[in-house]
Every structure is written in C-alpha cells, then in structure tokens.
C-alpha cells in the first residue's frame, strides 16, 4: 500500500502539488505566499513533496534527517507550525481525493483514509512537531546563553574601583548571577569600591531593590563599599513611593559622579593637566 501511494505521488507530483498550492492559497494564513518569491515557493513545495514520498519509501534514518533539515528551514522562513500542519493535512486530502478519483480507493471509503492517516500522516506530524520544537528549543537555549553572557560583568575601571553595569530586567536567576559575579569580582580585582549602575534597568520594584540591598550587604562583608549609581529621576520617585530605604548607600544620578566619589573615597582625584 505504501509503495503504491509513493509511486502514485511520484508519477503525479506536479499535478498534486499544483492542487495543493491552490488549496493552501485559500487558507487565511497566506503570509507565506505573500512574502516568498515564486521560486522559493516552488522549491519549498517540491521539497515538501519529496519529503512526503521519502517518508513512505526511504529508511527511517535518511527520512529523519530530511525532516530535520526541512524543519530547520521552515523555522528560518518563519512559518508557523499550525501552517505547516495545515499544509500536511491539505496534502493528504489532495492525495486522497485524487486517488479516489482514479479509483485506488472506493468512493467514500473512510476506513482506508483513516488507515492512511494513522500509518503515514500521524507519525509524520509527530516528527515535524518534534523537529520544529527542537529547533526552537535550540534557539531559545542559545539566546539564553547569549543573554547570560551579557548580563552581569564586573569591570575594573581604576585600581580599587570596579563598575557593574546592569542592563535590562532583573529576575531571580539574574539576581543570583549578579551576586556571584559581584563577590567574585570584588575579591579578584581587589576592589574597595564597587559601583552598581542601574541606568539600564527599566523598572526598580521591591524585588529588584531587595536584591540590590542584599548584594550591597554581601559586598560589605567582603570588605568593600557598594555604591548605587545611574538612578534616573523617575526611578528615584518610585523608590521613594515604594518606601524603600536606601540610606545605607551612597547613591548618585550618573556613573560619572559615582566614579568621582569613589575616587575621593580612595583618596584620589582626576585633575586636569596643564599642557604647557
């Protein structure tokens, strides 16, 4: 039965794909047909057909590889998974209709259709969903790592003075990372003053404040002083409204002022040099 269908598809591939394309264009979600050039559509559609044949005739391994390649491609093209699954079921319908017309199946023979579906399409669905999610998971994983790399680095700017610029949302996981990097960095760089720059933190709520306070306490325990810099006016107002007590901190509006104060704390200053 499988080889029968495969031969049939291979022999009539152009006609089937043409019909399938018409069916797909009826779909509301025809974004794909709008963005893609005709050439790309043609290639992709043929690849899809190949894949359908391959799933019937080829070894599990080769076909699995093909499905992975295909999934990667459609993720890159930005197709939604529901669109792909729709494409798949439309493809089956077209084939079934055609086969019914030429008499492979008796008219209205739902049983063979169900058989066709469970033996061929359902596993194919699974594989596509599986491959698709794997590609996405990989993307998310990579982005997560990339984000982590950006998230909290301690930069020694002067002897005894380090800066940690914080950019973006601080969640529990990042707060942990900030604490770790901060303490490790303070010890490693022998910092006496650490400046936490929150210019790039969009929202300072009680949780973020809590983590900052804890980090500062820990920094004090390892013998350094923590300063909070880059407090924007609107953040200052929300901190006051929330009633968060930051009196234990030296705080400044900009990083520049913070550095000046940190230098003063370590008995240094930046002076202009007379060039003459």
């Amino acid at each position, binding site marked *: 039965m499988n080889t029968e269908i495969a031969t049939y598809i291979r022999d009539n591939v152009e006609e089937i794909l043409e019909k399938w394309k018409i069916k797909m264009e009826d779909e509301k979600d025809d974004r794909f047909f709008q963005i893609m050039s005709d050439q790309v559509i043609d290639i992709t559609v043929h690849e899809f057909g190949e894949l359908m044949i391959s799933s019937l005739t080829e070894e599990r391994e080769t076909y699995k590889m093909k499905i992975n390649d295909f999934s990667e491609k459609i993720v890159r093209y930005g197709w939604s998974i529901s669109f792909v699954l729709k494409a798949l079921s439309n493809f089956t319908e077209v084939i079934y209709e055609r086969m019914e017309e030429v008499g492979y199946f008796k008219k209205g023979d739902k049983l063979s259709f169900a058989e066709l579906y469970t033996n061929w399409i359902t596993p194919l669905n699974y594989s596509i969903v599986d491959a698709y999610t794997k590609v996405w998971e990989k993307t998310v994983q990579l982005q997560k790592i990339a984000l982590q790399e950006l998230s909290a680095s301690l930069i020694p700017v002067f002897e005894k003075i380090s800066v940690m610029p914080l950019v973006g*949302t601080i*969640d*529990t996981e990042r707060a942990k990372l900030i604490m770790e990097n901060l303490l490790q960095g303070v010890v490693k760089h022998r910092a006496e003053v650490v400046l936490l720059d929150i210019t790039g933190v*969009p*929202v*300072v*709520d*009680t*949780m973020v*404040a*809590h983590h900052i*306070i804890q980090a500062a306490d820990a920094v004090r325990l390892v013998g350094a002083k923590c300063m909070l810099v880059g407090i924007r*006016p*609107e*953040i200052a*107002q*929300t901190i006051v*409204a*929330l*009633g*968060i007590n930051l009196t234990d901190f030296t705080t400044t509006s900009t990083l520049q002022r913070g550095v000046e104060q940190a230098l003063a704390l370590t008995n240094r200053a930046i002076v202009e040099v007379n060039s003459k």
Partner: protein
Amino acid sequence: MNLRSSVDIITEWDIVAARQLGRNEAKEVGFGTVDQARITTAISELARNIYLYAGKGNIEIKQIAEGNLKGLLVIASDKGPGIPDVRKVMEDGYTTSGGLGAGLPGVKRLMDEFKIDTVVGEGTTISATKWLR
C-alpha cells in the same frame, strides 16, 4: 472608551510582559515618564505577588474615562490562598517571603485609588487606578 487587555501570569517572565503592556497602555493614555514608571512598577509588584503567592493569575489593564478625566485601571486577580489579614499586609515592612514588605503599601502610594477584595482560600482581586492630571 473601554479598551482592555490582559496578561496571564504563570512564569516569572510574564511579569515582564505585564509591565510592558502596562507601559504601552500608559503611554497611549498620555502619562508622562514618571507616571509611566509608577504604573509599571505597581504592575510589577502586583504581578510578582501573583507569581510568588498564588502561583498563577491574571493582570488586566483598562483605559478608563470619567467625565473629562482619563485614567488607567489595573486589575490583578488570582485564585490563590487569599490574604488572611489585609490590614497587616498594608503595613510597611510586613513580609511573609523574606522580601522588603513594601509591595502592597508601595502600590497604594504609587497609584491614586487602591482596593483589595480577598477571601481566604478563594483568591484575591486588587484594583488600582491612576488618573491622568
């Protein structure tokens, strides 16, 4: 005018989604940067409370109007354990999670109107409004 939108709070990242939505809505109503920060911070607190204490819930943000007055209404609802002693949670410094205990009283100060409906064992709904002046 009764535009509404909502975010389900299930993971920690939904808190970010909720306040992003809040910021956009606040911008649309015409709030300045300071009030935008107040509203987003309040949403952040309410969403985090849902995440921490109820596990899951919903933040709904509505643009409202009363006469000439325009404003933003934030409704945080959950089917969590409820709050046994509302007066206590409105005290500064009271916390059950080891946090700062400034969340709810802070939200009250950040917003103009504030209301808690809670039933122990059934859930909590907090509505907070900010008016555009």
